């Protein structure tokens, strides 16, 4: 499929002399018939060799992914963590103080997070906090430590905070209205104890279900955030690879993502069992 897109990795406005083009394509096995290329790729893949990158000619695909993945993982992981912590807290607070000004404010912010796209939020954050106030770095390279993560993580997490807050609020309101919570209250348990020990876990189920799409959103959102902050993550390389017709890089990242998604789905399924005893009993 990757070959179906017009153009190739060695195209440019300066056209290659035919002999040079032939030599290049031979060196990268691009002159073999497609099915042959496919089989060669598979046999290399099984041995862990994802091939050279056509565009980054001094690096292999394995190396590029190996460098980019930890960056994306840290970024996405922190964003997810932030989103869950802030989102659940905000949603719970809103649920407990339902219909007060606090509820409305929190949900108002949530609405902004959902409706304003990442590529608007991120540059605004950069302009305000990095350029004007100079509190945080504007970019990635050449800066050290955690401070260069702050803005990208916030930009990436914001939409997810919004969704999770709304989900938590709705779910928490539901759970708080159920029988066993009324029983606990009747037994004299305080609100914070009720929330911590009885209400939180069941209220988390919809949030957990949302984790799948949330991770996907973070992965795709990370492309925009990576471009805006100049972060060398998987999203950036994926887009560059497609635009540069860097076949091996694109294939490598697709395979990597697919493996990741399968693994994560497995983890989510297992987590269901941990959180909801009803499922465990099956």
């Amino acid at each position: 499929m990757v070959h179906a897109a017009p153009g190739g990795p060695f195209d440019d406005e300066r056209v290659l002399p035919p002999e040079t083009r032939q030599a290049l394509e031979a060196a990268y096995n691009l002159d073999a018939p497609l099915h042959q290329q496919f089989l060669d790729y598979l046999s290399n893949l099984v041995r862990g060799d994802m091939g050279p990158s056509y565009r980054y000619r001094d690096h292999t695909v394995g190396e590029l992914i190996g460098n980019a993945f930890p960056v994306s993982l840290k970024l996405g992981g922190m964003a997810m963590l932030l989103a869950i912590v802030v989102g659940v807290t905000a949603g719970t607070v809103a649920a407990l103080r339902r219909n007060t000004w606090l509820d409305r404010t929190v949900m108002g912010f949530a609405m902004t997070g959902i409706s304003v796209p990442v590529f608007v939020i991120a540059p605004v954050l950069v302009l305000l906090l990095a350029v004007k106030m100079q509190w945080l770095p504007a970019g990635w390279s050449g800066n050290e430590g955690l401070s260069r993560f702050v803005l990208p993580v916030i930009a990436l997490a914001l939409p997810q905070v919004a969704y999770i807050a709304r989900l938590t609020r709705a779910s928490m309101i539901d759970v708080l209205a159920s029988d066993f919570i009324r029983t606990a209250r009747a037994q004299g348990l305080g609100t914070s104890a009720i929330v911590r020990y009885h209400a939180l876990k069941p209220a988390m189920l919809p949030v957990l279900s949302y984790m799948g799409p949330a991770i996907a959103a973070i992965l795709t959102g990370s492309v925009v955030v990576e471009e805006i902050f100049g972060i060398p993550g998987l999203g950036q390389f994926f887009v560059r690879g497609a635009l540069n017709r860097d076949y091996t890089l694109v294939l490598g990242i697709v395979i990597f993502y697919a493996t990741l998604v399968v693994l994560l789905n497995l983890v989510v399924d297992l987590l269901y069992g941990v959180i909801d005893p009803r499922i465990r009993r099956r």
Partner: protein
Amino acid sequence: MISKKRALVYLVILAAAVAVVWQYQGVPQVGGPAASVLHRGLSTDPESVDPHKARSVAAGEVLRDIGEGLLSYSATGELVAGVADEWTASDDGLIYTFHIREDARWSNGDAVTAEQFVFSLRRLVDPATAAFYAGMVADINNVTEIIAGDLPPEELGVIAADERTLVITLVRPTPYLLSLLTFPSTFPVHPGSIATHGEAFTRAENLLSNGAYKLDSWEPGSVLSLSRNEQYWNNAVTAIDEVQHHVLTQEMTELNRYRAGELQVTGSVPPDSFEKVREDYPDELHIAPYLGVYYYGFNLTKPPFKDNPELREALSLAIDRDVLVESITGRGEAAAYSWVPPGVDNYAPRRFNYADQTQDERNAHARRLLAEAGYYPNNPLRFELRYNTSDTQQRIALAVQAMWKDVLGVEATLINEEFQVLLANMRAGAVTQVFRSSWIGDYNDAHTFLSIMESGNASNMPRYASVEFDEQMRRAAEQVDPKRRRLFLEEAERVLLSDHPVIPLYFYVSKHLVSPDVVGWGDNVLDYHYSQHLSLAPAGATP
């Protein structure tokens, strides 16, 4: 309550901890002033730091810092000595002899020798290397045959007379040869390094440099870190100790980082912010003419543009280029009424004969030509205009489409395609009618612009084939005297312009933001800015 003994123990531990931490406070101060670091923006990762595998402008920027050819350029764009400190040419202009300077060294202390240049140039043209720019040195003896595989690379017309003397034999007099020898593809590579490491000689830990800096590390997608090459022959003059080329593909990101003080030099300026930047940083914004032309090309192999120069001229006449450069691109570009940009060495570009008319006069002339070609309001000219997906390209295309419609009643359909798709279509020449393209010169000579319009040239996208144009180019190639050569080249351009295979719209400008801390920046038409020419002084200090 803790006992006195406990409290004493805690105090001692605390004091020890403070003493240890105190030790580490001032460590970087030992040994003199801190290293000076230049932070530059780079538009994309180089394909490679192997001079034969690299091809982008970005790669050239990095390579010019970590390597050097026989010749080089000064900060203001004059040819200066590089690895070669002396050279002579034979009277017939076919044999050049270069003397390699005695103190030219690689970063590991090895001498740079003539043999290494022979090895490197052979590697450049060797079909097995598949170097993108192999054809650039086609004026050297046997290059064309070697690239085609008819002769082995050992037959290349470059030999080492001795360790310090390099002799290049040419097929024809090539006045721009010296300019070619500044180009990164002609930089030397270290044969021993390739023998030891193979393809991995480009890894930062292995790569040897004969330039002002060496490559310390490369994080793809992020930054290339360079540091001073103490072995460089001119190291005493290099002021800046470290250079960081930050890979920033988004112009907006680069601008933000400049504003935040994280970059001292940007590679570009985003078009949308241009006005604001001009207001906020008038002294830091550098706009200079650049050797590049933006044009719309015709597919000359198919109707309606095949064999129809009047029609093509009409379309060229009806475009108000001043509107384009003032209102749409607005960064100081010059409207193009020639093919070769201004500022090229030893050359005065020809112009369209309507260059000095008013737009109204041009429009009237265009309408007449259109009618002569057989198109009327009830038989309008219809064709497709293809351009690559981008804000700027789209705005220009919309403007031109509107101008054509207003003045001539032409109905141009706009089709935007992703860059690679457009390239593929242009090369195939099957569906294109009018397409947007551009050409950036590789060296400071009119030849780099005119040669691509020779029939059969692979980059001749319109498929222009004029016997007269080719003849003028052929005769220019035979001239040794630069004045006579120039006459033939100018005549060739005149023929080209009157045939209208292309509509040049404007000439590029280079745009950079350069911090006031940076001293020694020189605007030049090739947009080469070697880090070794720059130094960092805090703003306000007298230079």
